């Protein structure tokens, strides 16, 4: 009975590939999410503005930390793609002081996840103990990965409420791993920005 129980347990253990395959490459993990107010009529508006830099969501501004910004090269890439996509949809860019219909606010954040595995079975094997205090450290297997998100929020300043809240009529989140060379990461970000606008055809204000 003991060997039969072991065989049954082994059966299920060897079938532990319950979630086979899955993502194989870094770009397989890229995700683009968009959300918009379905009642908002974008065709009534024409102008937008963009900031010069992209703020990083990090630190603690309330406690007096200075805001951090995405590096100029990557920020320029993101802002450039937003600008191109908005223009292709018929929007005109104006300066913030010229009372634009929409103000697009990009931001970014990144986080690092530590992954570790401690083999507790290690303690089943006895290693000679040296009386002067040296011992063999138990193995810990670890690694880490960094993921990042770019947020784009299209705000409608003229819709400011009595509580001083400015409505966000369209927003997007681009999420993926920040692994690989800078050019590879920038290339994937660029494609994701384009995808965010491609899946938002309601943003087009062109007269057909």
């Amino acid at each position, binding site marked *: 009975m003991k060997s039969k129980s072991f065989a049954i347990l082994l059966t*299920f253990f060897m079938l532990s590939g319950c979630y086979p395959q899955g993502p194989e490459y870094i770009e397989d993990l890229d995700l683009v999410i968009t959300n918009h107010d*379905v009642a908002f009529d974008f065709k009534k508006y024409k102008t937008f503005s963009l900031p010069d830099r992209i703020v990083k969501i990090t630190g603690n501004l309330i406690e007096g930390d200075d805001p951090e910004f995405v590096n100029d090269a990557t920020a320029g890439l993101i802002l450039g793609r937003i600008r191109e996509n908005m223009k292709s949809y018929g929007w005109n860019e104006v300066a913030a002081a010229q009372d634009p219909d929409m103000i697009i606010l990009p931001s970014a954040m990144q986080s690092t996840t530590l992954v570790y595995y401690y083999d507790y079975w290690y303690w089943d094997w006895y290693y000679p103990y040296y009386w002067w205090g040296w011992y063999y450290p138990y193995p810990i297997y670890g690694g880490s990965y960094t993921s990042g998100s770019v947020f784009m929020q299209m705000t409608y300043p003229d819709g400011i409420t009595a509580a001083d809240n400015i409505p966000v009529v369209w927003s997007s989140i681009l999420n993926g791993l920040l692994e690989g060379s800078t050019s590879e990461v920038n290339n994937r970000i660029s494609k994701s920005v384009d995808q965010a606008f491609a*899946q938002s055809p309601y943003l087009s204000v062109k007269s057909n």
Partner: protein
Amino acid sequence: MRPLIILIAFVLVLTARQAFSQSTFTAQYAINFPLGNTADYIGATSFRGISLDYRYNLQPNIAIGVGTGWYTFYEQKDYGTYNNDDGSLAISGLQYRYINSAPILFVGDYYFSPEEKFSPFVGLGIGITYNEVRTQMSQYYVNTDSWQFSLAPEVGVMVAGTTGVSGFLSARYNSNFKTSELDAQSYLTLNVGVMFGR
């Protein structure tokens, strides 16, 4: 495939220690074809499956017992955009879909020609099946699982081999009924394996 070969070797070793007279034990490699709601979610055939059955022969041509197994369905969808009902939300990316299914059935079989080399049979299983449906995009996934009442009619044939070992081939239709957590699931299982003790 390699783990499956090792598995079958282990089963052969442990069952060789016992001499079945009125009981049989069957280990089978299972190929599963999704149907109905299951096929709507994952269209790909599953080649990751194992079925294990135990039978007690009440008479030479009637047996009752239990059957279980583990079947994994998997499909990677092409890059696509998925929208919610009112169209306000859209998510684009690669989607990975998984279904893990583990039935636990009480089974009764009828063998038409138990003394012949080729003995066809019919059977019916009644029990419950654990079904877990997982949808993954990027690092995130949504899981839905449920225990569902199941009916599983089966037809097949035993091929008598050497003393105590027979070949086994069957087709079983697994019908899992809808619950509040999960829609009805169904699939056709093709079992190929070895029966010990007959």
